[in-house]
């Protein structure tokens, strides 16, 4: 097999078993023996073995990508199984890296697998990327998106990008020599308060399948040097309408990362860049709280408490504490439904949205309003385990 130290003239050769395995590739002119050897010589790094990483790692392995790296630090949990098809029910509690490695090896034992049991960071990204030809971004947050992009620009590696929200996805190929990068498209991340929060998110289980397989397709086209890669094009996927739209992307000459006079010359603190400090928004720690046990005993004592649920109606259907429902987004226009003379306990799923609600109500003049610490999740843990967690 070809390595960096070997001259390029010596291609990766295929064993008879590999010829049989890849025969449906070998008989098509767009791949053929030459293409399959390119696939075998290729080194692809998958960032994340989650929703996007699952299908793309499986397909890249099956297709015969010779060296695959997987970076993941997470553990499989039950909420992953709805979409992260590289993991099975029996894998819950295992490291995603171990679970993914087993499946990749089971699909194709010829893959040289490099496992990175770590969180991708500004300290390790450049060194990790250097050993690979293509980086496939399957991450789920803005700081890592900008980190992957900048590290790709700095190391000159193409960034096969995919992103999903509910039933909508974006796919593109960034940071090629001639094409735009993620920062040409989005120079700055959204401020934390303005993107829909985790609990308002959610994702249709098939969507990462659709988008991840498109990322795998783009990675394979880049390796083969065939077709038209999504360079300078942003593909928008709407699974609900099943509509695909394509937008033109241009390389921004003033791009801070890949422009003529870049200001991003080394990796930075991406949490700070994205305005994230610590796990929770600061507002959650600055509002008065009530613990679930205290709320329970005060309700049992028959005290006059008004329980305000600021989640969405579809969440109320999953489980509720019999509270009065006003979704956080509707609170400003429905605030007149609340009686400021009563003591109000606001709650949501985890306590983040209701902290914003408490903050808003206090600014609106409500004095007797508290946040249920930890939300329904904590209520389920500490008071009533019959309430399902989601």
């Amino acid at each position, binding site marked *: 097999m070809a390595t960096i130290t070997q001259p390029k003239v010596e291609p990766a050769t295929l064993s008879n078993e590999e010829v049989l395995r890849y025969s449906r590739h070998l008989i098509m002119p767009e791949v053929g023996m030459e293409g399959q050897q390119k696939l075998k010589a290729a080194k692809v790094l998958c960032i994340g073995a989650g929703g996007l990483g699952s299908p793309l790692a499986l397909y890249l392995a099956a297709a015969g990508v010779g060296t695959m790296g997987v970076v993941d630090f997470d553990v499989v949990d039950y909420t992953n199984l709805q979409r992260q098809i590289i993991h099975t029910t029996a894998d819950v509690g295992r490291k995603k890296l171990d679970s993914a490695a087993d499946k990749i090896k089971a699909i194709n034992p010829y893959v040289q697998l490099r496992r990175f049991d770590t969180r991708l960071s500004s300290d390790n990204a450049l060194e990790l990327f250097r050993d690979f030809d293509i980086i496939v971004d399957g991450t*789920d947050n803005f700081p890592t998106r900008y980190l992957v992009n900048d590290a790709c620009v700095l190391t000159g590696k193409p960034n096969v990008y995919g992103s999903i929200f509910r039933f909508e996805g974006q796919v593109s190929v960034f940071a090629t020599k001639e094409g735009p990068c993620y920062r040409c498209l989005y120079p700055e991340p959204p401020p934390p308060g303005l993107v829909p929060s985790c609990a308002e998110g959610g994702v249709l289980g098939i969507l990462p399948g659709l988008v991840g397989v498109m990322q795998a397709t783009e990675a394979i086209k880049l390796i083969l040097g065939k077709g038209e890669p999504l360079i300078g094009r942003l593909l928008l996927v709407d699974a609900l309408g099943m509509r695909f739209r394509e937008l033109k992307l241009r390389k921004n000459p003033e791009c801070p990362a890949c422009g003529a006079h870049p200001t991003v010359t080394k990796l930075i603190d991406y949490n700070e860049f994205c305005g994230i400090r610590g796990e929770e928004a600061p507002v959650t720690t600055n509002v008065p709280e009530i613990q679930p046990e205290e709320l329970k005993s005060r309700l049992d004592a028959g005290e006059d408490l008004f329980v305000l649920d600021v989640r969405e109606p579809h969440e109320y259907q999953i489980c509720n504490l019999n509270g009065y429902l006003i979704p956080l987004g509707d609170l400003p226009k429905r605030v007149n439904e609340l009686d400021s003379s009563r003591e109000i306990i606001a709650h949501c799923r985890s306590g983040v949205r209701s902290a914003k609600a408490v903050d808003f109500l206090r600014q609106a003049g409500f004095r007797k309003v508290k946040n249920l610490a930890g939300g329904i999740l904590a209520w389920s843990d500490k008071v009533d385990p019959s309430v399902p967690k989601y």
Partner: protein
Amino acid sequence: MKIHIPTPLRQYADKKDTIEVEAGTVAEALSGLTAKHPDLRRHLYTDEGKLRAFVNLYLNDEDIRYLQKENTKVQQTDTLSIVPSIAGGWSH
């Protein structure tokens, strides 16, 4: 003209995916949109009234930054798309 509302912003636009407005320029289209759906305003504009950097606007398939920005002329048959950055996986 038709304005495409992306999923994350639909909650501020009565859950609609497209909205029809009468407009001669991109700026007029946006002011028509925010007049109908005032909650969208703070998601599209900064406090200083500038379009937010993470919200991209496309007239058909072209980024308005490479046309005449908000002064770009529009036809009734054109489509304006709001394309905000989305992060992905949402594993939590």
